[in-house]
């Protein structure tokens, strides 16, 4: 069974239908990039995968568990926020605006989840957090507060914070869109090495180059629906749908 299975996902904000029946499967170890114009529903779909948004129709399973629900006796029972929180432990998320905790240092940001959510010992977690900081190339910034870090550094700490929970799945919501162009590379490098290590990733991005070199599959969304999907070579170099051709002609 695929790690992520989305079937007929629909979502409206007021009268605007943002997702119009999305079907998507993501296999273990697969890296899927969601591309498409603004307002296509890429970010909204990603946020539905860890129940930051509640879907109106359809289902999303992560590792066989319906997100936000408990299956029992042929029915799906909506979960309390506390139980949804338990489901989210296994899914890491990286935000466009980093969202680091400004009152904690880089190291403390990474330790927060394992200590407060998993109740693990500080000493052991501290050692792991230091390793993670080293992995994202920021060992010397352990004691720095987010305000003292550049955007690229903050985003790398945010990735480490998500990894500290040892997630099965990582969601990236336009992780480089808020960065100065010269800082984009360092974040993409970390994401590339994560992909090489076999992490399952869903990435909403406008970085076509990253999608081409790292993604196993590219999904092209327009107006809340999947227009085209396939390997980067198929979708990016030989798009079949006119809408995809139009979009790529503009961004490439």
């Amino acid at each position, binding site marked *: 069974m695929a790690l992520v299975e989305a079937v007929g996902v629909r979502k409206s904000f007021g009268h605007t239908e943002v997702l119009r029946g999305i079907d998507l499967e993501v296999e273990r170890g697969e890296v899927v990039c969601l591309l498409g114009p603004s307002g296509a529903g890429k970010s909204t779909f990603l946020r539905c995968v860890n129940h*930051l948004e509640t879907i109106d129709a359809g289902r999303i399973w992560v590792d066989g568990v319906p997100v936000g629900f408990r299956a029992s006796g042929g029915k799906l029972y909506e979960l309390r926020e506390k139980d949804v929180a338990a489901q989210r432990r296994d899914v890491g998320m990286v*935000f466009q605006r980093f969202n680091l*905790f400004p009152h904690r240092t880089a190291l403390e940001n990474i330790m*927060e989840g394992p200590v*407060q959510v*998993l109740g693990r010992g500080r000493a052991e977690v501290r050692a792991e957090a230091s390793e993670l900081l080293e992995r994202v190339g920021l060992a010397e910034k352990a004691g720095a*507060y987010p305000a003292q870090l550049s955007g690229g550094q903050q985003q790398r700490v945010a990735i480490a914070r998500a990894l500290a*929970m040892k997630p099965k799945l990582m969601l990236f919501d336009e992780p480089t869109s808020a960065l100065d162009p010269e800082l984009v590379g360092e974040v993409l490098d970390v994401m590339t090495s994560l992909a090489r290590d076999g992490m399952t990733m869903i990435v909403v991005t406008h970085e076509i180059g990253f999608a081409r070199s790292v993604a196993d599959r590219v999904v092209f969304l327009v107006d809340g629906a999947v227009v085209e999907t396939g390997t980067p070579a198929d979708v990016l170099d030989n798009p079949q749908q006119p809408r995809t051709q139009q979009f790529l002609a503009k961004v490439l």
Partner: protein
Amino acid sequence: MASEELVVVPLRHPWRWVSGAVILLVIAALGWAMAEAQIQWEDVPGFFTHPVMLEGLLNTIVLALAAQGGAIVLGVVIALMRLSANPVARWFAVGYIWLFRGLPVLLQILIWFNLALIFKNISIPMLFSVPTNVVMTAFVAALLGLGLNESAYMAEIVRAGLSSVDEGQTEAAKSIGMTPLTTLRRVVLPQAMRVIIPPTGNNFINMIKGTSMASVIAFLELIHAANNISSRNLEIMETLFAAAAWYLVMVSLASIGQHYLERAYGPR
């Protein structure tokens, strides 16, 4: 011409000298008037440390701390209700703030103190029943009057603080699996503190002075203590000045405490 050294002549401010002199003159005149006043200055230190005054001081401190402490706890609860998804809780909070912020503190103290006129007993059927007269002492009435009024202000301060924290912070906390309670305790409240502490400090300073209203129901705080002493020796101004000195001491200490609290929760 260009190589010539030019001397800079600073702008003169003659009016600063004039206005400075006027202010000093006014202060000197006030000082002279005070020295000429018909007041027994030498008695003031004695009233400052008079046992009745010290008892009033202690009662003032206890009342202010208890009322402010209770108001902070209640204020957090009302603020959470105000932000809750439950419409009944939301409307209750709005009504609570409207009522307790809307009425003068003095009026609220008087209503609590006279509660026995309309309710002989305070009781929950089958559980307990006590005569209102016994429970509603001057201290309790003052505590309720000051504390409930302040809790309405605290609710608004806490709400503003919680709302000031970026939504992304809550989402980040959720994304690492934090429960709503942990999110509040570890992520939202510490950041809201920066917004909450300065007005809370100001309100506490107001609370210290507001305890003086309890003198109307004969609670032995500083003003009532001063009146007690002067009723025997008729040195009204001397005892009031001694009380005034204690208020200034307390307010100064509170300001220093606020300064350190603000620094502890200040921006990194």
